[in-house]
């Protein structure tokens, strides 16, 4: 997995740390961002294979980040973005899916094992870089 990169945009340090450690131990190259602006900048500069994106973020929120990513014509329009949030209201889900998020996961309902397995499935068909 060394050639796969994942960007974690998460403001909660505890959760970000767990995700980073777990992903890194699976061999992914991990980028971390603690707010929307930083996350967007990293996404556009590093073009990771997958982005785990929170919705509630200080400053620019996850929906705005996703919207900006989709505006980038070459890579952004098809970038794999998985919403990983604790919001579960129907409005948020609908908004994210409308903006082309690949999946919408409620953090509290998912295990790390489940998230890793989902990421593995998402990336397995991706051509090697």
């Amino acid at each position, binding site marked *: 997995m060394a050639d796969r990169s994942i960007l974690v945009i998460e403001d909660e340090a505890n*959760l970000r740390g767990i995700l980073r450690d777990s992903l890194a131990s699976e061999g992914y190259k991990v980028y971390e961002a603690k707010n929307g602006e930083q996350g967007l900048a990293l996404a556009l500069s590093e073009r990771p294979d997958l982005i785990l994106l929170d919705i509630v973020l200080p400053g620019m929120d996850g929906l705005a980040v996703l919207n900006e990513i989709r505006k980038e014509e070459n890579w952004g329009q098809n970038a794999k973005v998985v919403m990983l949030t*604790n919001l579960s*209201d*129907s*409005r948020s889900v609908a908004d994210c899916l409308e903006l082309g998020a690949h999946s919408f996961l*409620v*953090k509290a*309902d998912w295990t790390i094992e489940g998230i890793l397995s989902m990421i593995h499935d998402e990336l397995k068909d991706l051509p090697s870089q």
Partner: protein
Amino acid sequence: MGLRRYFRTLKEQTVQNKLNIIIGLVILILLFGLLNFWFGMRVMSGIRAYVGGEGLWSKAEKAAIINLERYADSHDESDYREFLKNIEVQLGDKQARLEMNKPAPDMTVVRDGFIKGGNHPDDVEDMYFLYRHFRDVSYMKSAIQTWAEADQEIQNLLNVGNQIHELLSAPLPSNLAAAAQARQARAAELSSLLSQIYKIDARLTVLENQFSAILGEGSRWITKTLLTATITTTCLLGLLSLTVAIMIARAIVRLDRQKSEFVSLASHQLRTPLTAVKWSAELLARSADSLSPTQQKYIAKLHESSQRMAALIGDLLRVSSLDLGTYQSEEKEVKINGLLETAIYDQQKKIAQKNISLVTRIDPDVPVIKTDEQLLAIVFQNLISNSVKYSREGGRIEVNVAAKKEHLLIQVSDNGIGIPDKQQSQIFSKLFRADNAVEHSFNEGTGLGLYIAKAMVKRLGGKIWFDSVENSGSNFYVKIPL
């Protein structure tokens, strides 16, 4: 200004105080209404008794006149006794009237008087009540005045009666000529006395009519007054009750909304730290090989509890979104087998642990349906997770999906612990868990699953029901329109 200040003070009260004030007013008006009714009944009953009494009084008076006439003609002592007997009626009523005029009347004397007057013993209380409370009030005052005048005339009648009796009782001279002369003088005096009687009778007739007319008028007036008071009281009571009902309904709706918003906010805020606990426990459990069995046991408990809490929060958020009405439906083409697979996949671990055999049957003619996928997914998840939860080791679960004429019929059956007969009616209630469910799996289940499932099925325009036998299993059915 005073009224405005009063309203401002009222407005500043807490909801509880406002309700107390209004409820107090309602009780007050209700009491007033009851008092009004009781008072009205007594007054009306009193008036009726006096009208009846007046009838007896007049009848006896006329009879007494006839007795005197007859006595004057027959000179028979029994006619005179009849006269005295009849006049007892008026004298009885007079005895009651005079006693009632005293500051502290003796009720025995009053009762005795009215009964002598021919009145029914049960009416005495109301006659007394009316007299004592209204003797100085318009109609009653003038009726009593008329009564007193009539009693004076009765006294005159009695005097004349006595005179006739004395006249007729006086012995005649033994001398025939003197006797004839005395008879002549007696006849002349008798004639003069009889003419006095007729005059008294004429005056009494006028007074009797007057008394009836006054009571009649008074009765009409009091009926009208009481009716107005009753209507006013009823209207006020209705208006206040309506205000109370509106206030309570508004307060309930507001409090319920605040509660749901609070639950929603609190649940959401709880999710972030809980996720950290849950994920940490999971990672700890994964690297638990180096820990002692006791430590491993505690980590497993930590992991399990955090998962349960996450499920509970998820359910609470769904309930609050239903209560708040913030859920937005979104219809799209849904493949039933996909939903079913996901719901079963979520339970795979537990199905394997309990060695449950699960059979799914989806009719080939089940079409792709247009519905709210999220809602239907939750219904499947809840029903399947329940059947797994309440199955025993080696149990069997069957899921059937069939397309009927205009609807989809989903059936989830298990041979698990079932639902006790007595608690079946509560099974869809919020936070309800059957006794055997709590006993069977205390740590699982929130008491919200079936409540949510029912709400979601309703939202989808469908119906959910079940049949179940305790210790034998349950069949849940869901009907969704196609």
